[in-house]
């Protein structure tokens, strides 16, 4: 499965949606993921890809990780996975 599909699967599970309902331009808010859901999603993604995402729940917008929408999250994770290998 591609990184994109794996990330979407994690986000969909958190949002209690089908992966097909998660669009690349969806924001986490659109998907009904609150701050606690966000922290859980990030944890699940870190476990899935064995990476560390620079994220502090106190300042989500100031973290060095773009959470604007699903596309931005996927792009960020692709970069972190590439940096790891």
């Amino acid at each position, binding site marked *: 499965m591609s990184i994109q599909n794996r990330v979407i699967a994690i986000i969909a599970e958190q949002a209690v949606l089908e992966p097909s309902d998660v669009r690349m331009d969806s924001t986490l808010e659109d998907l009904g993921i609150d701050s*606690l859901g966000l922290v859980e999603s990030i944890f699940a993604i870190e476990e899935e890809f064995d990476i560390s995402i620079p994220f502090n*729940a106190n*300042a989500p917008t100031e973290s060095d990780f773009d959470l604007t929408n699903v596309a931005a999250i996927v792009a960020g994770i692709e970069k972190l996975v590439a940096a790891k290998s």
Partner: protein
Amino acid sequence: MNRVVITGAGTINALGHSVPETFEAMREGRCGIGELNFRDVERLTIRIGGQVRGFEAEARFNRQQMALYDRFTQFTLIAAKEAITQSGLAFHGDLSARTGVVLGTAGGGVSTWDDNYRSVYEDGKNRVHPFVVPKLMNNAAASHVSMEYNLKGPSFTVSTACASSNHAMAQAFAMVRSGMAPAMVTGGSESMLCFGGVKAWEGLRVMSKDACRPFSLGRNGMVQGEGAGIFVFEDYEHARARDAEILCEVIGFAMSSDASDIVMPSKQGAARAMANALRDARVNPEAVKYINAHGTGTAANDKTECAAVADVFGPHADNLMISSTKSMHGHLIGGTGAVELLACIMALRDGVVAPTIGYEEPDPECALDVVPNVAREADVQVAVSNAFAFGGLNAVLVLQKV
């Protein structure tokens, strides 16, 4: 209803090993937060905290005691000794039979859990020390205080996360006020600064990697501390009859539950606790000159707390001082309200308001007088101490100068 006064105070925390040392550090706005030092710290991403330093437990307690005292119990006993010595009370006869101990802790013997899990899981051992259970249990500290000082009245431990100590002290206050007990030993203790304790908090992503900067724009989270604060609450007439030194009076409290979210604070829940505490104390909001804030340094708590203060105090919110001493000693979780009560006592008794240090820039969402960086002299007649816990459980105390 009896009046209730504080006749003894004791502490050990990152700012000092006694009340005078802690007051001095608070007056000077000193920071007790630094690099954490314990086993496996290199596997943590959060490596700062308000650790108690220069403390040799082995020098204070014998081998038999060490086998039974987790660090949170050690802290409790050290603080209790200071408080009870200051009070001058000796517990015999009826006083002993009716005086109890109510303490707060969130985690109890966290490092005992941690050490022994490591031993059986990581080191593969199949046997643990026989005293693991009595050492780690949340009520161990309260029980050891009761045994040490012959306190045979109502004794138990309250565990409401970050509000544990305030709930405990509120309970002790209610017992003395109602006449159920002539005096109570109360406060709280916490010691989670070990690998497993910090690792758990790290997961929540609310910890700062560099500093605790409550109310300051750009604050990035909480920093954990450890230690204990213990007090003797006593019936005013009882204290006066024996000519005891009175540190201040406790005049009211309230507790409330947000009933909304397991981690996000609620303005309404916090405001109800403050407003009801003032009502219980029978003081007007305008009488309050100082609030020791919960002030964790997280984005969510600080703005919510300031909004709640604005709701409760109206225009007077701009005339009072509100500071978070967590910026200096860190967040003692279940013990935090107890150590923070010291800042209220210092304000009432010495007329010195402890600052919020690490303050860099005003946050429009926290537009109150947070006593930035430098302590201030002020004549404070009434002070309030806030604690708002995960799980939405709030407890607020009101104190008065005597």
